[in-house]
């Protein structure tokens, strides 16, 4: 088979007639020929002419073919320059020497033009293959370098975004492999304006940059909406809608979201496709498992998306432990998975929460033997109310446009109550008043509390005393969901009035509902043991030191903020 294209062939042969004959055979096959009479000439000609293939007589004067082959191979470096030894030797030893010296094939005398053409053709294929492999290797190395560089840049940018949150809070402990982001893992935490804490542990499908690109918009929504005081439900809906809109069909994000309310001693949970999280007692016992009950973010259309969350009690010192699937999916040499059982054993054996991550990592190493780059662990401790100092938001406007003399009344009827939470919008508006900004955390808490009182106890008629233990807690929120879905009439009215005063101003908030009202004296007189989880939020409002009144037999709450 002739070579595809003419090659430059170096022929080194000391016999003049043999050289003449061989040169003619090779030339007739369409190649360019350079000839040498001995090994030394061959090496010099190789350096000068850089032929593609060498035909080398084994036994030559001055320098024999074996030595010439070694030198030519050394000069050729990584490129394959095939050497075919020409020999009338037929002893095994001689042929072995040819190959050991770097020869790729040999050719016996007398020469056969047909066999030589076939050999040159075969060697040319090898040569091209090697050239292709080298080319692809170099290209791969370039791409790899490029990719690493992109990842470095993306990581630097992303680290800035991710760390604008409150992951460094004293109640959060977390561990992430350095390039976990490029395995799709994402961990975010931020304080809400009322001092609650939102935490998100997410896991995008895929690896590398594609897995990381979705993280930016997701973080943007998470931080933006948390800072504006939106609850988990609104934030979840927005994140799902955004990912659904921008991600390709086969990409989505498993996520576990938490809202830790330090004031209320509760944790609100939504888990879509992440491994079980754990609610732990102060001593580390598992109180309950936070299972996935939803599809991941970015799959369902907004109208099908299920934003139902679970609200669980979590008292100061109790913890929530979250992990990515890299932990339970770690495999050993026999492809067995680390699994939930082994994780539970580690949790059960843990005595010092500070050592938990180390213990998990050690258990993984003992099990799989291979360190992984897709591990995220997060341990969040419930703090005492006011025990953490949220970072104060920075405002960029001058305050000259503060509106100081206005009033507003907003009435939400049944259909709106089902799907809309007006509090973040109102708070956003109230942020325009400079004098209120120092008390914005209290304002968030009070407005949020009074609104949910009006909705849950007033409109829905739920009894807060249900919430005196964990089981009742779950029952309470199940019932809330049931009644809200069935709601056909009722309203909550929110009235705001802002008045300028001598040196500052005053905000009056009135929230009234269509419910049957309640006996304020009786609720406030309840024993302290009931106050933890129930009490219509009155204790919370009182504790925040706000002037509060209940009018119309408890159907209308009025609070005032002065500055």
């Amino acid at each position: 088979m002739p070579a595809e294209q003419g090659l430059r062939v170096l022929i080194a042969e000391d016999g003049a007639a043999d050289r003449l004959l061989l040169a003619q055979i090779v030339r007739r096959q369409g190649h360019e020929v350079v000839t040498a009479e001995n090994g030394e000439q061959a090496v010099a000609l190789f350096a000068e002419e850089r032929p593609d293939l060498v035909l080398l007589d084994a036994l030559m004067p001055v320098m024999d073919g074996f030595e010439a082959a070694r030198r030519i191979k050394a000069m050729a470096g990584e490129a394959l320059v095939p050497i075919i030894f020409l020999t009338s030797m037929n002893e095994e030893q001689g042929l072995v020497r040819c190959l050991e010296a770097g020869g790729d094939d040999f050719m016996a005398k007398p020469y056969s033009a047909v066999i030589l053409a076939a050999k040159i053709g075969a060697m040319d294929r090898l040569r091209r293959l090697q050239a292709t492999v080298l080319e692809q290797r170099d290209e791969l190395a370039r791409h790899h370098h490029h990719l690493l560089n992109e990842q470095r840049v993306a990581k630097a940018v992303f680290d800035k975004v991710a760390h604008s949150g409150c992951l460094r809070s004293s109640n959060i402990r977390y561990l992430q492999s350095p390039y976990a982001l490029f395995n799709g893992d994402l961990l975010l935490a931020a304080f809400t304006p009322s001092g609650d804490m939102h935490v998100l542990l997410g896991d995008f499908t895929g690896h590398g940059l594609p897995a990381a690109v979705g993280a930016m918009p997701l973080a943007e929504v998470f931080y933006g909406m948390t800072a504006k005081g939106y609850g988990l439900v609104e934030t979840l809906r927005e994140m799902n809608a955004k990912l659904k809109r921008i991600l390709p069909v086969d990409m989505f994000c498993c996520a576990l979201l938490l809202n830790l309310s330090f004031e209320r001693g509760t944790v609100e949970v939504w888990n879509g496709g992440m491994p079980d999280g754990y609610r732990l007692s102060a001593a580390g016992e598992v109180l309950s498992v936070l299972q996935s009950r939803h599809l991941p973010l970015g799959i369902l259309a907004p109208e099908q998306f299920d934003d139902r969350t679970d609200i669980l009690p979590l008292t100061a010192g109790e913890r929530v432990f979250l992990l990515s699937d890299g932990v339970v999916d770690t495999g050993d040499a026999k492809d067995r998975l680390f699994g939930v059982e082994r994780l539970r054993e580690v949790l059960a054996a843990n005595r010092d929460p500070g050592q938990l991550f180390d213990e998990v990592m050690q258990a993984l190493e003992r099990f799989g033997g291979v360190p992984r780059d897709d591990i995220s662990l997060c341990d969040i401790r419930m703090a005492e109310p006011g025990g953490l100092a949220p970072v104060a938001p920075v405002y960029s406007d001058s305050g000259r446009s503060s509106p100081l003399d206005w009033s507003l009344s907003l009435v939400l009827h049944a259909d709106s109550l089902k799907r809309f939470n007006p509090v973040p919008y109102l708070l956003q508006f109230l942020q325009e008043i400079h004098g209120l900004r120092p008390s914005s955390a209290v304002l968030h808490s009070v407005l949020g509390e009074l609104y949910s009182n009006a909705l849950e106890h007033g409109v829905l008629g739920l009894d807060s005393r249900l919430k005196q233990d964990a089981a009742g807690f779950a029952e309470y929120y199940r019932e809330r969901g049931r009644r809200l879905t069935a709601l056909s009439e009722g309203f909550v009215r929110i009235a705001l009035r802002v008045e300028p005063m001598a040196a500052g101003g005053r905000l009056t908030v009135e929230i009234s509902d269509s419910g049957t009202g309640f006996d304020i004296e009786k609720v406030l007189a309840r024993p302290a043991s009931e106050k933890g989880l129930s009490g219509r939020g009155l204790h919370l409002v009182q504790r925040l030191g706000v002037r509060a009144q209940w009018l119309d037999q408890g159907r209308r709450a009025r609070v005032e903020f002065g500055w």
Partner: protein
Amino acid sequence: MTDEHIDHKVLSDLREVMEDGYVQLLETFLEDSVRRLSLLHEAKDAHELGMAAHSFKGSSSNMGAVGLAGLCQQLEERVRQQPLYGIEDLINQIDQEFVEVQRFYRSERERVSAG
């Protein structure tokens, strides 16, 4: 010329491959062979003799001089077995065979040049 000296198939192949260079190939072989023959005679030890016989064998076989190639191979094998006595006979046979080969290739050259 009988087939024990020359393989005529090889020769006709050579003529086809070499085209216009056929005569030059014949001349080169004849000149080169004279040199190789003198190397055989001047060899100072068994190793040199073996090398010379080996090279001569290779070029003879390429040219279709099968008788000469066969004798060279015998010589190449013989020098590996000491003592070398009686080896002169083999060298003499090679000399005689080359005379035949020389005569044949010269006439071949004349024939081709004339044609």
